[in-house]
């Protein structure tokens, strides 16, 4: 079954916060560019050393006239770390910084190795700042499906990267938080992208920056959730944790990268989950470049072997 959902989005608060964090000159240049060109929202700011900034604005790639020097990218990196690079070591070695307010900045440069481990990074060459959007109504379809089944279904959302699965989860968290009859749910937010000021929830148990597999186990053991929401199952350990949680009676809403249903069912890490009916439905999510609507494809998994 295919369904199309149109959406509206807003990035103002997150963008304002980001501008207050980065070097003043850079922030002013970006805001001037956005105001001159009347873009209503931006998804990403892509910076490369000694090159011009690219934006993904209004779902389009846009080249700006803002040049980023080596000194600028280094000072932006320091500013995004809040002046304390060491405090972000754990995420920097994974290739990103959690800036706060759901903003995530991917960073790359020259790795400093200590044996086989990354002990640091130097000569920053690229920063890619992803700005979370509040997409109103993105999770309507998912929420309706859950409601029909009394929030006792497990769902697996799949799509290629960058389509908006995290934005859907963000909207879903808000919807679940606003239920008249609350349910006990935990959110596993390893990269601090799901829980933002938009999706701040007083009714959920948020596991921020925990390794996913560990957080799922801890949530199951200590918070007795009825539902666990988790982004991007990509490793065997995470799949194993999901499997154990479901066998403890917890329902799960998870996402994974996959371009199609056929690719999904052929993924080896998901095979134990799909064959054991951990998920009731697999929902494909797609979005055409430049369009403001999601397409959902529902696949029933129960009795799928």
């Amino acid at each position: 079954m295919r369904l199309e959902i149109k959406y509206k989005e807003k990035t103002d608060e997150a963008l304002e916060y980001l501008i207050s964090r980065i070097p003043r000159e850079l922030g002013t240049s970006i805001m001037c560019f956005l105001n001159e060109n009347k873009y209503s929202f931006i998804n990403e700011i892509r910076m490369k050393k000694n090159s011009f900034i690219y934006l993904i604005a209004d779902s389009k790639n846009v080249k700006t006239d803002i040049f980023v020097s080596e000194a600028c990218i280094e000072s932006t990196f320091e500013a995004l770390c809040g002046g304390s690079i060491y405090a972000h070591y754990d995420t920097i070695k994974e290739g990103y910084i959690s800036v706060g307010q759901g903003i995530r900045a991917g960073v790359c440069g020259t790795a400093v190795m200590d044996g086989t481990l990354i002990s640091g990074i130097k000569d920053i060459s690229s920063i890619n700042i992803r700005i979370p959007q509040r997409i109103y109504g993105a999770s309507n379809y998912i929420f309706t499906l859950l409601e029909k089944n009394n929030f006792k279904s497990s769902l697996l959302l799949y799509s290629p990267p960058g389509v908006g699965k995290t934005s859907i989860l963000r909207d879903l968290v808000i919807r679940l938080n606003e239920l008249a009859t609350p349910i006990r749910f935990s959110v596993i937010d390893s990269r601090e992208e799901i829980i933002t000021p938009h999706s701040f929830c007083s009714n959920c148990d948020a596991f921020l920056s925990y390794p996913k597999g560990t957080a799922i186990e801890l949530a199951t053991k200590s918070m007795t959730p009825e539902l666990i929401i988790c982004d991007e199952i990509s490793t065997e350990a995470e799949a194993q944790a999901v499997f154990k949680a479901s066998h403890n009676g917890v329902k799960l809403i998870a996402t994974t990268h996959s371009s199609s249903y056929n690719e999904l069912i052929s993924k080896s890490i998901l095979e134990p989950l799909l064959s054991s009916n951990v998920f009731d439905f697999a929902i494909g999510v797609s979005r055409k470049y430049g369009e403001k609507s999601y397409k959902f494809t529902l696949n029933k998994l129960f009795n799928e072997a």
Partner: protein
Amino acid sequence: MKIAGCILIFISAILCSYYYEKGLKIKISKCEELLSFINYIKSQIDYFSLPISTIYEKYDKKSDFINEIISSENGIKAIDKENDQQINEFFGNIGKGFKKEQIKLCEYNIDRFSNLLEKLKNDYPNKAKVFRSMSLFFGICAIILLV
């Protein structure tokens, strides 16, 4: 009048030596506060990896000198030119690297300022004696010339 003048000169000489001694004591006190602060910073980075702004907020022994260091953008003038440069470099570089480097930076500065503090404390009694004596000597010379 001459007697009044002599008394004034004598008091001025005493005050000069007093203020110079006080200056030495202030340098020692600033050095002690600085060492305590750097030790605190090191421990917070080593054990908790707290962001530097949080470390500054949490520090509960803030004096005017420490507040000046934290809020200064143009550098401070505390001890002498060379050591002030070192202090400004330290606080300019803290936070701008990974844990290992930051700990090494703290340890280097702890070593340096510990040695400086020891030197200041050792030199203080002798310097104080010299300044007292010299001030008294010049005061008495001035009185003799006047009288």
